[in-house]
């Protein structure tokens, strides 16, 4: 069996794809043409629609309009089995392996009859040899490095007859040398006739390994061209657009640059819950009245930085000095910021619940909730209504009302406008600016770089665990986020 039998012509063709999730248009007449035997890079910011587009190709999502063709055959869509049978194999960002089982067992998952370890092992050895990827047999997957797990996923897909492989952000969690190995492999695979779609936001990889590149921005294709002759700067421009100022033209707020230092960080390391170090030797100061924007792509470690600055994750080493009054607006509000079954008043009471003593005066709390609801214009029937009865936008308003009540020294906000409409977004921005004007330090992150740049007076870029300040300039920040010098 030859891996990735040579294919001429078009391997994958997506035309006029429109995909909506509720009121949000994720893909707006997106298109993609992948020639057989090539490496095609699909790039864009977080939220640009890259993953959604490929999930459609893999049959994990349906389309509202448009067509999918695999190797010349039109797909009905929405069926994983169909696209797999047509020869598309996808290696997801979050791997789907069973950690407790061995490589051989994971490889064999989903078949029937007697499990003959030898036969399966032989097939694994053959497939991996063909593909040029070494896999250690009979080792628990939990003991494998991420690289090896990734290789196993690829070999699994190939064994199922995949002729076109979609790799979704495969290098996000790899070390530089491992990245090199993977890129070399991709080149070799294509040279032997295989087809690869590489979803990434790392421009250096694109230049190094891809034949063609398609750039998505806000769900639409802004650029499709051959990679030969393209420069990183030009690609970065396509990804981020131009200009140094936010979309609504407002200037970043000018802070009181000589305010007291509210957050002091010195050579701080922070690891995630699995013990992996995500932030290395971060050193920074944040002063009153500043709005510090954190610009980073998924997986860079910015989540751990935000949690540490919010006081929810203790650093492994280094020094972290935080003020007392901290307001935190987490990214996943339904899970981390509120209790859907509780009333608005009870959700309001969550803040400070950990250290509160004695009796709760619910009339007072209700009064405070009412005031907060009024101030932040939360649309709700009454403070006694359950929080889940509110729309997403109003839930966020409630959370802001709770967190920004009273004297706050530090506001940490992670994607605070996610799921909000324009009005809600504007409101959140006003509140953040107002908090800064009142003397709080604000640290905010958004997957939307424009939003960050529109608000921030300073920008910190987190890339692969390192935190570095950058000037408030779109091009510079964009490149720093991608690790481009």
């Amino acid at each position: 069996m030859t891996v990735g039998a040579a294919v001429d012509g078009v391997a994958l063709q997506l035309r006029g794809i429109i995909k909506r999730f509720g009121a949000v248009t994720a893909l707006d007449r997106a298109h993609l043409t992948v020639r057989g035997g090539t490496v095609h890079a699909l790039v864009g910011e977080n939220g640009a629609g890259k993953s959604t587009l490929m999930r459609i190709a893999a049959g994990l999502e349906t389309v509202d309009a448009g067509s999918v063709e695999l190797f010349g055959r039109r797909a009905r869509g929405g069926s994983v089995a169909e696209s797999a049978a047509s020869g598309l194999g996808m290696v997801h960002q979050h791997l789907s392996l069973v950690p407790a089982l061995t490589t051989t067992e994971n490889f064999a998952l989903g078949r029937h009859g007697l499990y003959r370890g030898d036969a399966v092992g032989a097939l694994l050895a053959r497939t991996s040899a063909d593909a040029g990827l070494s896999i250690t047999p009979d080792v628990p997957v939990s003991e494998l490095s991420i690289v090896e797990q990734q290789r196993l996923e690829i070999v699994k897909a190939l064994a199922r007859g995949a002729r076109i492989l979609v790799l979704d952000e495969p290098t996000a969690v790899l070390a530089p040398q491992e990245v090199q190995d993977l890129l070399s492999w991709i080149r070799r695979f294509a040279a032997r006739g295989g087809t690869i779609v590489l979803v990434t936001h790392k421009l250096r990889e694109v230049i190094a390994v891809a034949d063609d590149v398609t750039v998505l921005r806000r769900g639409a294709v802004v650029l499709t061209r051959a990679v030969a002759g393209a420069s990183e700067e030009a690609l970065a421009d396509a990804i981020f657009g131009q200009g140094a100022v936010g979309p609504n033209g407002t200037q970043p707020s000018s802070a009181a640059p000589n305010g007291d230092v509210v957050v002091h960080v010195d050579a701080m390391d922070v690891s995630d819950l699995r013990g992996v170090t995500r932030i290395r030797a971060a050193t920074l100061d944040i002063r009153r009245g500043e709005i510090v924007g954190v610009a980073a792509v998924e997986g860079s470690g910015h989540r751990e930085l935000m949690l540490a600055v919010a006081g929810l994750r203790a650093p492994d080493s280094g020094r972290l000095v935080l003020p007392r009054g901290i307001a935190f607006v987490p990214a996943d509000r339904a899970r981390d910021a509120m209790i859907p079954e509780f009333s608005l008043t009870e959700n309001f009471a969550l803040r400070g619940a950990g250290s509160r003593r004695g009796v709760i005066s619910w009339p007072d709390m209700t009064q405070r909730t009412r005031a907060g609801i009024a101030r932040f214009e939360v649309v709700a029937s009454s403070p006694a209504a359950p929080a889940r009865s509110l729309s997403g936008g109003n839930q966020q308003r409630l959370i802001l009302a709770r967190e920004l009540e009273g004297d706050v020294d530090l506001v940490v906000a992670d994607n605070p406008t996610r799921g909000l409409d324009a009005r809600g977004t504007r409101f959140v921005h006003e509140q953040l600016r107002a908090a800064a004007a009142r003397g709080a330090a604000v640290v905010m992150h958004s997957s939307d770089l424009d939003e960050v740049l529109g608000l921030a007076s300073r920008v910190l870029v987190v890339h692969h665990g390192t935190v570095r300040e950058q000037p408030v300039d779109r091009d510079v920040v964009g490149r720093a986020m991608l690790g481009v010098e």
Partner: protein
Amino acid sequence: MIEASAFLEAAVRTATPLLLAAAGETVCERAGVINIGLEGCIIAGAFAAFVAGPAGTAAGYAAAVGAGLAFGLMLALFVVALRRDQIITGTALTMLALGTTGTLFRARADAVLVHATEGPLTVPLLSRIPIVGTAFFGQPAITYVAVVMVPIVALWLYRTHAGLSLRAVGEAPEAARAAGIHVPLVVTGAIAFGSAMGGLAGGALVLAQAGTFAEGMSAGRGFLAIAIVALGRWRPWGVLLASVVFGAAMAFQFAVQALGWNLRYELVLMIPYVLTLIALSLFRRGDAPAMLGRTEG
């Protein structure tokens, strides 16, 4: 020594229902479900065997399996189809089984039937071996069935794709689904097998040990079985070993009498339960299937 032989024989006999239930529970837990209703399956099986016993041993065991299966399917309905919490549902089912069997037993107007217990099925030559002969080879047929279940379960778990699928479901159901495995079906099958074995264990209690029924005679064996599975590291052969240990602990009361030790009977009865706590504590759940006890999503 006669005493040692008698104790060993009692230990193996006592271990039989434990082993049956634990073997079934191993499969069930490997699929990610902890069956708190196992105790209910056992008592239900015991009662069914008691009722059907007069019609013959085979009928008794068949009824026992059926009764256990019935409770297991109820658990599957709540846990798989309705996605309710395993623990609460299991607890309720155990309470239901205990209450129902107690009610039905007391309601039987006819005199309490005492069956002759199943006689030993002695293996010709081997049972002559001194000390261990009768203990291992002079047991009722059901004991041999229980022991044979161990390699069968082991083979099934590790040498078939079905077993592999089940193990995958208990560790990472999303990955299993991605590989095309029908997760709800696998979980239901696992629960069914585990509860059927639990019923069978109850049948063994009545038909091969006590000869009669008493309210609450399961005496926590369902939970002991769960501890045995943990102690055996969710591996069939480990479970076999752990069952013998617990069987010995339960049979210890006879050894005490025979040895003439001055240990209070009630304190000796505590031993299996204390052993359970120790086993569950010392043997960390790191080896447990990752999804054990969790309702998905």
